[in-house]
């Protein structure tokens, strides 16, 4: 093994640093982008740095983050879940309707049951997604597109197309703010982010997720039970959608058929893409998703603070997506050049040592 010497010689920069360079530079780029964005909004937008804006953006962003975390898991396996926002809507509506119509009472026990039902609904529909993708072997785009339609339709059937009022005992789950600064959604989103991070980086589950996304055939040949694993991934994404659904229905205390529309889906996927999760699978980190969410959420609120018509929101996010992907690709090609240089230097030095010894 090439052992780096005490002096700062070019060869001392072993390619071990290459990995750190790539990760660190990605993170740096992303933080720089966020800094630029915040500066622009801070200057051109009114009250960007106010507590009111923080509460608003954080609450809104938390829902996006939870959905984006679920989407991240699926995209890492080289799949896609187009139904994740609709599953959020379905879970929220089922939970809300339970408390409004079928629960024996609205006390705190029933509230807990309601939350459990919401998350379980998400997990069950996610499981179904996974089943259709793996066992029925339908490509994720189509499978989840179908689920999107089905979930949206079921919501309309359940609510008869109108919003149903939900008892107020559910409200604290969606409206509490702790210490005046931390909305409950933020706590939930942070919890989910930490959970998904640990899952992806510290467990075999995470390892297999990346492996399947990187090369599903290789993973299968090495003995990973891909069918079982993918079903778990989609079910987990559904469960996260369920969490988001419960938070949403609790926030509005209304089971509305409008929860989880195309905007929510777009925001979640945008957050992933901006955060560097590769749509080809196998690449991307949770930190990226978090930063992508920050960008998307602050864009929505920041533009309004700048007095820009809401029509421009999707335009802005579209531009940010394209720019992000372009910059990510630039950065990767730079890393590639760096590797070549390092390799060349390394091999020359090895030859030199060989000769001298």
């Amino acid at each position: 093994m090439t052992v780096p010497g005490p002096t700062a010689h070019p060869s001392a920069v072993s390619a071990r640093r290459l990995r750190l360079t790539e990760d660190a530079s990605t993170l740096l780029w992303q933080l720089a982008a966020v800094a630029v964005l915040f500066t622009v909004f801070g200057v051109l937008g009114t009250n960007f740095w106010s507590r009111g804006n923080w509460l608003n953006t954080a609450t809104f962003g938390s829902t996006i983050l939870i959905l984006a975390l679920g989407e991240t898991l699926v995209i890492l396996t080289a799949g896609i879940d187009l139904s994740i926002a609709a599953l959020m809507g379905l879970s929220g509506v089922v939970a809300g309707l339970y408390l409004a119509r079928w629960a024996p009472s609205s006390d705190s026990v029933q509230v807990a049951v309601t939350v459990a039902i919401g998350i379980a609904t998400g997990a069950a529909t996610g499981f179904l997604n996974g089943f259709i993708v793996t066992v029925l072997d339908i490509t994720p785009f189509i499978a989840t597109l179908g689920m999107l339609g089905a979930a949206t339709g079921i919501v309309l059937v359940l609510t008869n197309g109108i919003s149903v009022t939900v008892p107020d005992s559910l409200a604290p789950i969606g409206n509490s703010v702790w210490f005046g600064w931390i909305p409950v959604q933020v706590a939930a989103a942070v919890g989910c982010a930490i959970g998904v991070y640990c899952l992806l980086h510290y467990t075999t589950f995470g390892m297999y997720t990346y492996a399947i996304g990187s090369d599903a055939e290789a993973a299968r040949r090495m003995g990973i039970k891909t069918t079982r694993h993918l079903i778990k991934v989609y079910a987990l994404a559904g469960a996260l959608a369920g969490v988001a659904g419960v938070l949403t229905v609790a926030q509005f205390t209304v089971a509305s058929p409008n929860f989880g529309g195309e905007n929510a889906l777009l925001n979640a996927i945008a957050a992933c893409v901006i955060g560097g999760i590769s749509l080809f699978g196998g690449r991307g980190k949770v930190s990226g998703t978090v930063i992508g969410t920050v960008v998307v959420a602050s864009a929505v609120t920041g533009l309004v603070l700048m007095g820009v018509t809401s029509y421009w929101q999707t335009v802005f996010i579209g531009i940010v997506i394209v720019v992000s992907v372009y910059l990510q690709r630039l950065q990767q090609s730079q890393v590639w050049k760096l590797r070549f240089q390092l390799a060349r230097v390394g091999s020359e030095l090895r030859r030199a040592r060989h000769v001298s010894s």
Partner: protein
Amino acid sequence: MLIRRRSAPRMHAIVPICAIAVASLALATGTGAWGSSSNKVREDRASGNYSVAVVHVGKYSFAIVQVLDDPFFNSVFIGAKQEAQKLGGPISVKLAGPSQVDPQQQVADFKALVNSGISGIAVAPTDAKAIVPAVKEAVKAGIPVVDYNLTIADPSIVISQVLTSTLPGAKAAGQRMCAVIGGKGDVFVAGAHAGNPTLQQRWNGFRAGLAAGCPNVKIVFHVIGCEPSQATGIVKSAIVRDSKLIGFYADSQCTATSVVQAVQSSGLGKRAHVYAYDATPDEVHALKAGKIQLLIAQKGLLQGQLSLRYLWNAVHHTKVPKLTYTGTVLMTKANLAQTQKWAYPAGGGQK
């Protein structure tokens, strides 16, 4: 008409056509099967959500072609049933077709009805122009058509129009807002979708009413959409930006949900004045709870009654007015006792 986001599921065309075929078949064979003087309404549902209601009165059958299955159209449907009961004779109702906003689907439903031996059709066109050829077909076949709630592009071909007349109600709300805020502070107008003429009338009416008495009041307008999380985020941002926002106007049921949430969670609750269009159950609930101060309710019940009455008159060759405006009602907590009856009912015509 309630405004909802457009992404209702698109179901296979076979379903409504089969359902209407079944309805026609039953009509042809079963009319004599019912007892003579029972005024009880029998309902047959082809599916959970419906876009076509066929009301049978005696030997006639009238179809109400709805745009979507939601509280406003429920009130129309209930009004039609009430009128049918008044006209006497056994009534039964067949509900068919999936609920959707697709104009082409509505045209297909309409044409199927024309071919099914229907006596008369009342339609609220999703697309004012697309429905015209189908209506002309119906008229040629001798079937009277009433246009209700949403204007048709060519009013001359229908026997009657029963419309809401959006502007006066919206204007009245605007004037009232001006009075209530005393000409001080800013007002937020929340739009559900862009490019919808009915919604635009609701915005313009309100803005005109407000500007008439309060020309110096700033109006902040955003199309916030129907997705509650995002819509609330936008309204709250507007509140963060402009601390003088004191009046809020939601153009429909879906924007009402978000505006109420935004106002409540921004701590403006007691001071803000929230007005909203339409009177769905949760809007009325919010009105009673003091979260909304004014609702502009359309008179769906009346539109249903008049539509059926005019169709009945038409098949009995009685004269029918060309254009009727049913108007709107301003509902407040104070006048709720009198105006309660205009609140839109919950559920699919369950009353």
